[in-house]
C-alpha cells in the first residue's frame, strides 16, 4: 500500500485498520477500505499517464494535466485485475465554454480534442498509439442529444445501448492519421433542470446525515432507479467505529425490498463497521433506508487538526445489475461522502490543566520548603497562652 501511495503521490497509507473491513471468503480474506477525501494534485496524474503506452502520441497525448484539473469533475482509476491486467480509467466532466453558468446558454458545437487539450493547443486531433494493438474512442451520447448531434467525421460504428437511453459512436484510431471529431448540436441545447440519466444506467445514490451538533443522528440513504427494469444488487458500506451505529433501528421505505446481508460492528481503533444490504428497486422507483447512530468520544490524539470542521465519511458503494438490460457487467454507483460533526473536546484544556497543576504544585512545594527550611525558635513564653487558649 505504501508503494502504491508513493507511486501515485496519494494518501493510500492512511487507509489503516480503522478504515479497512476484512471479510473471510473461503480461505481468503477480502479487504475493503476507502478514504473519504483526497487532495488532488497534478502529481497524482503524471505517474498515471506514464502507465499508458505512448506518452507523446496516442490517448495519453490528449490528456493535459492543467486542462484536466480545470474540469468540473475528475476521477482517476487504477484497477489491477489478475492475471497481469491493468485497467486505467479517467473520468472528466467538462462543460463547454458558455455552458458553465447554469443559465440558458446554447451548446452549439464543440471539438472533442478541445475538451481535453483546449483550443489554445491548436487544431490538434486524436491519433492511435503505435504501441497499442487497438486504439478506440467511444462517444456516449444521451439518446435525446444524439438525435440532435451531427458528428464530423462520421463514426465507424454507431450503436444504441442502455435500453435505448444512450448512443455510442465508435472511432477506431490509427497511429498514422489524425482524427478531429467535431460535434454540432442543432437546435442548441439548454441545460435541463432535471438531471439526465446517469452513466450508471439510470441509478443514482443519495445520502445525508440527520441530527446536528454532537447529538445523536441518523444515516439516510436513497437509491433512485430512473430506468425501466428492476435493479438488484448489493450495497456495501464501511465506516469508522467512532459512529456507534444502531443497526437494529434500520427502517426502509419505497418501491423495493431490502435484506441485511452483513451487520458487523466495528471496534474503535481496530475495525470499522461493515454493513451490507441486498436491495431490489423497481423501475422508476426509489428505495430509502435509514438507521440511527451516536457519536463516540475519541481520544485527544485521534482528532485531526481541523476537528471542528467535522469528519469526512467515505462513500458507500452499490454494485447492481438491471433486469432485462442488454448491458454487460454490473453498475457501480457511489454515494456522496458526507461531513459529520462530532463531539470535540476543548483542545486548550491540556494547557489549562498543566498551568493549574503547576500552580498548585508550586504553592504546595513552596509552602513545604518554607516550613522545612525555617529555623526553629524557642517559644517558651507562648506555652501558657497556648494551653489557656485550648
Amino acid at each position, binding site marked *: 500500500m505504501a508503494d502504491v501511495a508513493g507511486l501515485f503521490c496519494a494518501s493510500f497509507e492512511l487507509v489503516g485498520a480503522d478504515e479497512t473491513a476484512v471479510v473471510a471468503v473461503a480461505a481468503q480474506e477480502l479487504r475493503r477500505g476507502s478514504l473519504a477525501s483526497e487532495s488532488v494534485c497534478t502529481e497524482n496524474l503524471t505517474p498515471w499517464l506514464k502507465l499508458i503506452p505512448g506518452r507523446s502520441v496516442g490517448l495519453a497525448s490528449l490528456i493535459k494535466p492543467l486542462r484536466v484539473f480545470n474540469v468540473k469533475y475528475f476521477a482517476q482509476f487504477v484497477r489491477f485485475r489478475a492475471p497481469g491486467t491493468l485497467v486505467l480509467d479517467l473520468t472528466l466532466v467538462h462543460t463547454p465554454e458558455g455552458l458553465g453558468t447554469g443559465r*440558458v446558454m446554447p451548446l452549439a458545437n464543440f471539438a472533442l480534442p478541445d475538451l481535453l487539450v483546449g483550443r489554445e493547443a491548436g487544431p490538434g486531433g486524436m491519433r492511435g498509439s503505435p504501441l497499442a494493438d487497438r486504439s478506440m474512442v467511444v462517444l456516449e451520447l444521451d439518446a435525446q442529444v444524439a438525435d440532435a448531434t451531427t458528428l464530423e467525421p462520421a463514426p465507424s460504428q454507431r450503436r444504441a445501448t442502455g435500453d435505448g437511453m444512450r448512443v455510442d459512436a465508435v472511432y477506431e484510431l490509427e497511429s498514422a492519421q489524425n482524427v478531429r471529431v467535431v460535434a454540432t448540436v442543432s437546435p442548441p441545447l439548454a441545460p435541463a433542470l432535471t438531471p439526465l440519466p446517469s452513466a450508471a444506467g439510470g441509478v443514482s445514490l443519495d445520502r445525508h446525515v440527520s441530527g446536528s451538533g*454532537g447529538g445523536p443522528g441518523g444515516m439516510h440513504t436513497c437509491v433512485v432507479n430512473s430506468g425501466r427494469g428492476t435493479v438488484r444488487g448489493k450495497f456495501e458500506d464501511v465506516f469508522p467505529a467512532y459512529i456507534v451505529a444502531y443497526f437494529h433501528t434500520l427502517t426502509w421505505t419505497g418501491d423495493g425490498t431490502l435484506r441485511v446481508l452483513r451487520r458487523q460492528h466495528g471496534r474503535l481503533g481496530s475495525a470499522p463497521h461493515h454493513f451490507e444490504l441486498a436491495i431490489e428497486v423497481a423501475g422508476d422507483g426509489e428505495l430509502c433506508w*435509514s438507521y440511527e447512530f451516536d457519536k463516540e468520544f475519541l481520544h485527544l490524539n485521534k482528532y485531526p487538526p481541523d476537528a471542528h470542521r467535522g469528519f469526512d465519511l467515505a462513500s458507500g458503494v452499490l454494485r447492481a445489475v438491471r433486469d432485462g438490460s442488454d448491458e454487460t457487467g454490473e453498475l457501480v454507483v457511489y454515494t456522496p461522502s458526507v461531513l459529520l*460533526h462530532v463531539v470535540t473536546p476543548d483542545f486548550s484544556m491540556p494547557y489549562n490543566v498543566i498551568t493549574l497543576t503547576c500552580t498548585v504544585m508550586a504553592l504546595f512545594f513552596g509552602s513545604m520548603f518554607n516550613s522545612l527550611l525555617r529555623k526553629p525558635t524557642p517559644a517558651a513564653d507562648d506555652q501558657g497562652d497556648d494551653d489557656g487558649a485550648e
Partner: protein
Amino acid sequence: MGLASRRCLRAAIRATFASPLPALLALVVGLTWVALVPGLLNSTYVDENALLPNAGATTLSRGDVDRALASLRPTLALGPDAASPAHAALGSALATALATRLGVRFYSHGYALHAPRAADGSMWAGANVYGVYTPPRADGKEAIVITTALPLADWDAFLASTPSASLDDAAARPGGAVGLEALVVVAQAVQDARWMSRSLIVVLTDAPAWVADHRPQLALPPNLARSIGLQAWMDAYYAAGPAVDGHLRYDALHARAGALLAVLGIELPDTGVASWAMDVVGIDGLLPNMDLVNVVVQVANHRGSAVAYPSPRAELVPYLRALVHVAGMTSYHARILCNVFSFLAVQAASVPRAATGVVAAHAVPALSLVAVPKEVTGGSADLALLTTDITLAANTLLATLRSLSNLLESLHASFRLYVLGTERLFISYGDYVWPLACVVATALLAAIAAYLRVSAGIFAFSRSGGLRQLALSVLCVWTSVHAVPVLVLAFLPQLHHLAHALVPPLFASVAALAFAAGAVWLTALVALPAVVATLSPPSHLFWLSIKCIMLLEAVWVIVCGSLLNLGLSAVFALVLCLLYVPTGPFVPPSDAGPARTAISWLLNALQLVVMVTSSPPVVLAASLLL
C-alpha cells in the same frame, strides 16, 4: 506553627466567616472588576487579513445589479398558480420562477405553526422557498446559507410596485421583496464566479400573515414573523423526515448540500436604508465564530461602508446608557458597557434577537445584516429602497461568501465564547470568568459562614432529640421548594412536550445531571452534621440552614450554568449577590426589636425568593418554558 500564628489564623477564620464584610468586599471588588474589564481591553480584536481575498475585483457594479434586476422582475410575474391565496401554491410558483431564472432547482417547503392561544387548535401555514446550488469546485459536503424573510402575503404588493423593469423608481416596496432581489443577484453572481468552493443555499422564509397581524396583541417575540420560517427550514434540514405533530410541523426537504458552514441573513425594512448593522446573538458557546463577525466587518469596510454593532433593536441599550451617564462614565466606556450588559441580558433570556438566531440550536454560526431604516422626514424618495441599497447588501454578502468559501475549517472555534462590546471589540470569556467568580464568591462566603454557624449551633446544644426535627424540617422545606417546578413539568404534558421541542436534548441531559448531582451533594452536606448530633434547634438555626442550602445550591447552579449560558449565570450571580449581601446580616430575627424583626423578616423573605428562583429546578423550568 507558633501560638501567635494560630491566634492569627483563628482570628482570620472568625473574621472571614462570622462577618458579612468579606462577602461584601468580594461583591464590591467583583462588580468593579466587571465594570472595568471592557475599558481595559481595547485591542482584543485581531484583523484576519488572510480571510480577506475579497479585496480584489469581486464587486458588483450598479450596472451589474441593474441588469440582473431587469431580467429578474419579469420572471417573477408568476403564472396563474400565484393567483391562489394559498402559500403553498404561491411558494411553488415562486420556486418555479426562480428555477427558470437561475437554472438552479428551487423547491417549496411547507410548514404549519400551531396558533398560540388558539382554542380550536388551528394551524397557520407558510411556505419557504429554497434552492441549492453546488458550484463545480464544491464537493457538496459543506454549504453556506443566505436567507431573507419574504412574507408571501406581501407578494402582491411587490408585484404592484414593480410593474415594469424601471429601476430608478422611488416607489416604496416591501423590504422582503428587495431582500429577495439582493439574494438573487448574489446567487447569480456566485454562478458566474469560479472561486466558490462551497455549495450555496438560498432560503426565502415565509411567515404566516397571522403572526404579523396578531403579534402585538399576543405579545409574541418581535422576530417571530421573520424567524419562524427559518426555524422550520432548519429543523427540516437536520430532521430525518417530516414533522407531522407538535407545535411546528413541516414537510421533508427535497435537497440538501451537506453540513451547514454558516447562515447569513439579511433583514431589510420597508423604507430606505440609513445604515447597516449586524446582529450577533446566540447562546453562549454557540455564538457565531468570531471569524464570521470579523469577515463581515472587514468586508463592509472594504466596500466603503460601515457595519455597526448592535442593531437598533437593542431596546435595553438606552436605559443602560442613561444609567451609566448618571454614573459619570465616558460615552465610549458607556457604549461598551451598555453593549456588554445588553449582550449578557439577551443571552440570559436565551431568546435570539436576530432572525437567524434560531439556527443556534443546531450549532451553526449565523448573523444577520440588518438595515437601519431611515426616519420619516422627507418625501417618498427618502423612503424608497433603492438599487444602491441592494448593491451594497449584495456586495457585502458576496464578499463574505468568498471569504467563507476560502476557509478550510472553522478557525478559532474557541472564539465562540465571548461578549461583543462593539463591532471591533470583543471580550473573551476567559477575561470575564475571574470578575464573575469574584461575584459568585460573595454567595459562597456567605453560605460557608451560615453552614459553620449551623454546625456550631447544632453541636453546642444539648442532646435533647431535636436532630430529627431539624433534619426533617430542612429536608421538607428543601423538597417542597424543589418539588413544585418538577411537578409542574411532570403533570403538564403540553409544557413538557414544548420544553423538549425547544431545548436541545444534550443540554437538558447535562443540566439535569448537574442538578441531580448538586442536589445529592448538598443534601449530604447538610444532613451530615445533623446525623451526628441530636439537638433541638432554635428558629434562627433553621433559617440559617435554609439559607446555607439555597446559597450553596445557587453557587452550584451558577458555576454549572456558566458552562451553558454565561449571560444567564452572570445575571443570576449579580441579582443574588446584590440582594443578599447588603441585607444579609447574620442576626436572627428573634434577637432584635419588633421593627428590626419585621424588616429582617421582610428582607429574609426577599432573599429566600431570590434564592429559590435561582435554585436548580426553577432555573431548569424557567429555561425550558422560556
